[in-house]
């Protein structure tokens, strides 16, 4: 039984469940909306200023919102102890990790698509640099958040404190990726400096942590 076939069927199952309940997407969207609105109330900005800080705000909002979705996807596996059914089966652990990561990636991508117009309206944004850099940054940044988030979600859900722990361990680890995402976004929005270094950095970060997650996931899944 191949890693890919179990991956595909697990991802399809997750998407179907999310399509029916829409728990993760709804709570994530509303949460992100709240963050954006509260931020724009808290700062009174001119167009130039908002271009300077919007990159930071977008990613912080996404990071907070992603935590909501990440916790939901694992909480679903814990209900009725379904995760044990996966653990007793011969299905490879890597498939579960990748399926969850891709699922979360899609959720956060939808969030990005819906948030971008919101940001443009609320913060009067217009990109001065090339737009393709923004797209690249959102894809690579998204993956950087969810790959670690999915791994740590599987860890924190198994502990006594459940959901509380995830942000405590995910945020510090995500700081370098966050710096690169914000760097790429800001330099594209303001047209100052090059985003290339940040994008390469993010790509390397993504590859390293995806491999590390794949390598250690079975250990964490079968830990007791």
């Amino acid at each position, binding site marked *: 039984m191949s890693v890919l076939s179990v991956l595909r069927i697990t991802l399809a199952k997750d998407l179907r469940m999310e399509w029916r309940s829409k728990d993760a997407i709804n709570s994530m969207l509303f949460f992100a909306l709240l963050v954006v609105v509260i931020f724009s109330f808290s700062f009174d900005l001119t167009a130039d200023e908002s271009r300077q800080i919007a990159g930071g705000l977008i990613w912080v909002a996404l990071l907070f919102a992603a935590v909501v979705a990440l916790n939901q996807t694992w909480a679903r596996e814990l209900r009725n102890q379904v995760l044990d059914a996966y653990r007793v089966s011969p299905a490879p652990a890597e498939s579960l990790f990748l399926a969850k990561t891709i699922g979360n990636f899609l959720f956060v991508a939808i969030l990005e698509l819906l948030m971008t117009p919101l940001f443009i309206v609320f913060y009067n944004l217009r990109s001065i640099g090339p737009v393709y850099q923004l797209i690249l940054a959102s894809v690579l940044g998204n993956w950087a958040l969810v790959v670690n988030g999915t*791994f*740590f979600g599987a*860890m924190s859900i*198994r502990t006594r404190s459940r959901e509380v722990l995830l942000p405590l361990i995910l945020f510090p680890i995500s700081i370098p990726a966050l*710096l*690169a995402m914000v*760097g790429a976004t800001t330099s594209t929005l303001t047209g100052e400096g090059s985003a290339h270094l*940040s994008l390469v*950095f993010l790509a390397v970060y993504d590859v390293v942590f995806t491999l590390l997650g794949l390598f*250690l996931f079975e250990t964490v899944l079968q830990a007791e």
Partner: protein
Amino acid sequence: MKSKFAIFALLTFVLLSWGLYQALVGAPTEATMGQVQRIFYYHVPNAWVMELCFPLNFLASIIYLVNRKAAIDAFAVATAEVGVVFCTVVLLTGPIWARPVWGIWWTWDARLTSTLVLWLIYVGYLMLRKLSTGGPNPVLAASFAIFGCIDAVFVFMAIRWFRTQHPKPVFAGGADSGIDPRMMHAFLINLLAFTCYGALLVWIRYSLERTRQKVDEAHAMKSLLHQEARSSR
């Protein structure tokens, strides 16, 4: 074991006292920074001990995942906790020096920022350990430590590359331009003293954790062997 520990503790105490004397009296007062420069004799050795502790924690975590020996896990806890303590001291002594010299408590320069992020990562590690007691604690902690240490490499690169727009504080005088040999002397003694001090603390914390593990094991063995202890109640 006990006598070795006593000798080592005594040696550390002597070194620390001597280091204190050298730092406060032996070394001359720095020309431009004044008395406050003397905090360097503590600040830098503390940073050094911290930089020793975290890689040791990384190594211990990898070894633990391979052989699952409780003693290795105890060592990982010890190095992480001592590392966080020394890191805290670094973060506290830095601003004390920076305020009179730079005129500000804090600046987001590369070294300060990366130390702070490192501190956050390892406090996260300790939180994970604390919040997952009774569960799959050591395995999760070891996995996280590996993530944390690899992440630290990215932290250093990211901060160097992406946060350069911030003002770099100017070193008054420049400590690297011809240090007084007495200063160097005081610094080296303190470096040695604090390394011993760090090792001593790791040793103490390690034996404490080992004792705790052994007490738990003994209790478990007792409950394994005497079934009446529980079933009769």
